[in-house]
């Protein structure tokens, strides 16, 4: 039997030129694409079937606030990619700085989303609401949407928020590891896949923001 010296676990015989961890993350993101397809697809289908249940943009949801949130998430993406560029260049200080910024921006995003939820809930806009009126903004008590509006809004933004929360937790872990000197110019797979996940979450938000808030 002919054998050869075993390559290390991370190398393998690669036909894609992409190391395991990164390939695994991409493959995982594909399943995430299908997960959000299920959610967004259901939203589109329910909305087509019941257009009267969905309020016009801005009538219930606070678009300026969410636009600010979108901006924050985009900023966190650029800080994430800077962290990656810095660790590649061997700039440890830059890595730590940008990772911290990213984690903090992620937390700001979650905070704003929490505020948004609280205000909406206080106006009677909850996932299981039969009918609700947006007090204050739209003026008066007229009915602005049906039960499916709250159902789909909270499910979609909630799942995105869950993804951001997981991302923030992982970012803090990366910050911790960065301070321990875990990442070097030659070994930083963790930062790269962290970045992939984080940008993916950003990408999903870009789609969600348009579909849920603007259309």
């Amino acid at each position, binding site marked *: 039997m002919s054998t050869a010296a075993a390559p290390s676990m991370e190398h393998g015989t*690669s036909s894609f030129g992409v190391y395991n961890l990164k390939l695994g993350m991409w493959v995982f993101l594909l399943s995430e694409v299908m997960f959000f397809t299920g959610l967004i697809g259901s939203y589109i289908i329910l909305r087509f079937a019941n257009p009267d249940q969905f309020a016009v943009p801005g009538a219930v949801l606070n678009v300026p606030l969410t636009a600010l949130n979108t901006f924050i998430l985009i900023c966190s993406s650029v800080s994430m990619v800077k962290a990656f560029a810095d660790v590649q260049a061997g700039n440890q200080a830059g890595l730590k700085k940008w990772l911290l910024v990213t984690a903090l921006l992620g937390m700001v995003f979650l905070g704003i989303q929490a505020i948004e939820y609280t205000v909406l809930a206080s106006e009677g806009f909850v996932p299981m609401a039969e009918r609700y009126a947006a007090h204050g903004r739209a003026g008066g008590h007229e009915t602005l949407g049906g039960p*499916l509006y709250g159902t*789909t809004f909270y499910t979609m933004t909630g799942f995105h928020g869950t993804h951001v929360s997981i991302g923030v937790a992982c970012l803090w872990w990366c910050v911790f590891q960065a301070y321990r000197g875990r990442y070097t110019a030659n070994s930083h797979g963790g930062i790269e896949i962290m970045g992939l996940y984080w940008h993916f979450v950003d990408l999903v938000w870009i789609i969600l923001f348009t579909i849920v808030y603007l259309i």
Partner: protein
Amino acid sequence: MSTAAVPHDTAAHAQAHHEHIPFIRKYIFSTDHKVIGIQFMFMSLFFLLLGGLLAMAMRWQIAFPYNETAGFQGQPLPGGDLLPETMVVQGIMLPEFYNALVTMHGTIMVFFAIMPLLVGVWANYLIPLQIGAPDMAFPRINMMSFWLAFGAGLLMLASFAVTGGAANAGWTGYTPLSINDLYSGVKTGQQLWALSLTILGFSSLMGSVNYITTLINMRAPGMTWFRLPLSTWALLITSILILLAVPVLAGGLIMMFFDQTIGTNFFKPETGGQPLLWQHLFWFFGHPEVYILILPAMGFVSDIIANGARKPIFGYHAMVWAIIAIGFIGWIVWGHHMFMSGMNPMLGGFFMVTTLIIAVPSAIKTFNWLGTVWRGNIRFHTPMLFALSFVALFVIGGLSGVPLAAAPVDIPLHDTYFVVAHIHYVLVGGSLFGIFAAITFWFPKMFGRTMNETLGKVHWALTFVFFNLTFFPMHMLGSGGMMRRLYDPTQYPHIASMQDTNIFITWCALILFAAQLIFMWNFLWSLFKGKLAGENPWEANSLEWTAPSPPPHGNWGDRVPVVHRGPYEYSAPGATADYQLQTEAPTGQPLPATH
């Protein structure tokens, strides 16, 4: 490599302390792909047994219902006294328990028996061994995948014990029956069902990320795509199907869970939700799932038939492309499960055509298996018998799919026992026979001992005969108009007239179940007392047979095999034996002009 002669079992066994890994890390929270595969095997064989028991109880009720007005005296359920009054009262099964049996039999068999037996066990066990890798790409994620599946299984079992009993809305969980306990009488059980399947979905996802990454990145030197054994090819396509289909189901299940618990409205018609949306999401997952449940078995069977016939697989490339084609077309056929659901009839026409087209790659595979045995030199060992039976029965299961695919013919056949017969020919006659073939074939590699051939052949013969006697008559029950999931079929005069067939089926099913005890005994006995197997008891070619039996952690130690040829080089002219390991270096000897 010194462990080669020492068989070690996964069960608690004294040999564990030969190596210096603590027991709990070696056998319980192990990151070794082989141990994880074996853990999946023990878990899913348990669920297979349980699912079978549930089916026996169902069959008893169908054969011996209490319907005295129509002249059916009924028979008390054997052992029914052991069950609580919420299930069986004075030997009489309650309809709610029957519906729970229907649901849990389907759910357990599909998600906790067949799927892990095909993918959890063999993708874990075979992929690294067949591609020449020391382990999976992400061993710890692999371990988590098993323990999540285990937890999901416990949740599913727990649902039998909660108030209201286990889920009873069918394994397809059609809404709104499954989301409203006013309609089904089951609240917690139905929630546990959704939760458990969601968790199992995460487990499957972790697994398939692992399998795909491993297969792409960790193949041994010389192991090109077209030197992969067909088992591995099938497992790759299966993993891709799981990766892309399961998240859609998980999304649907989560929406269902929210509808059940926090009062959202996705599938509630009274607030504009769409019951058919659930069906679309479920079957968008569900049809790829059907191929998830058959493709790996096709792969194993291809390997085993080539080995038994001592002949290269006929049309290797055609086989690979057929697997890929099934994987692709499988995404656009889901609507045939919904022909009668009230969806747009134009869509019905579209789905009918795509469904029929999928017969083409299936036929390619069947004919290539026939081509493989043609002019072979066939050894009828137990795995070969199961593999050949797979082909014979898959032909029936495939052909009975044709009338179901033709939409107008499906009108009378939909939701009848014809469908029950069809799915069991594919899932039992196909997948389960493939699983038996695979277990008997790779058992020596897993445990270092061969299973008993005589017991194996007796088990095969009984299973083959009584499987057919159980399920073939169901076709006629179905075309005779017997609907599925009826607690008491004698309520309908046109079904009551066929009751003798139902009784016959029940007796055959009981014998079929009893025959599986032979397999259980053979399996357990051979673990400890089976004949010692060498590295390559079947004289096969692929890489796993170059490792010791059982392979140690890391499979080949600090070396990896180098691959020089395809996996099906049997009976090559000029070779010394009628098989050539994939690692065998080219001799440089010119081939003889004739053979």
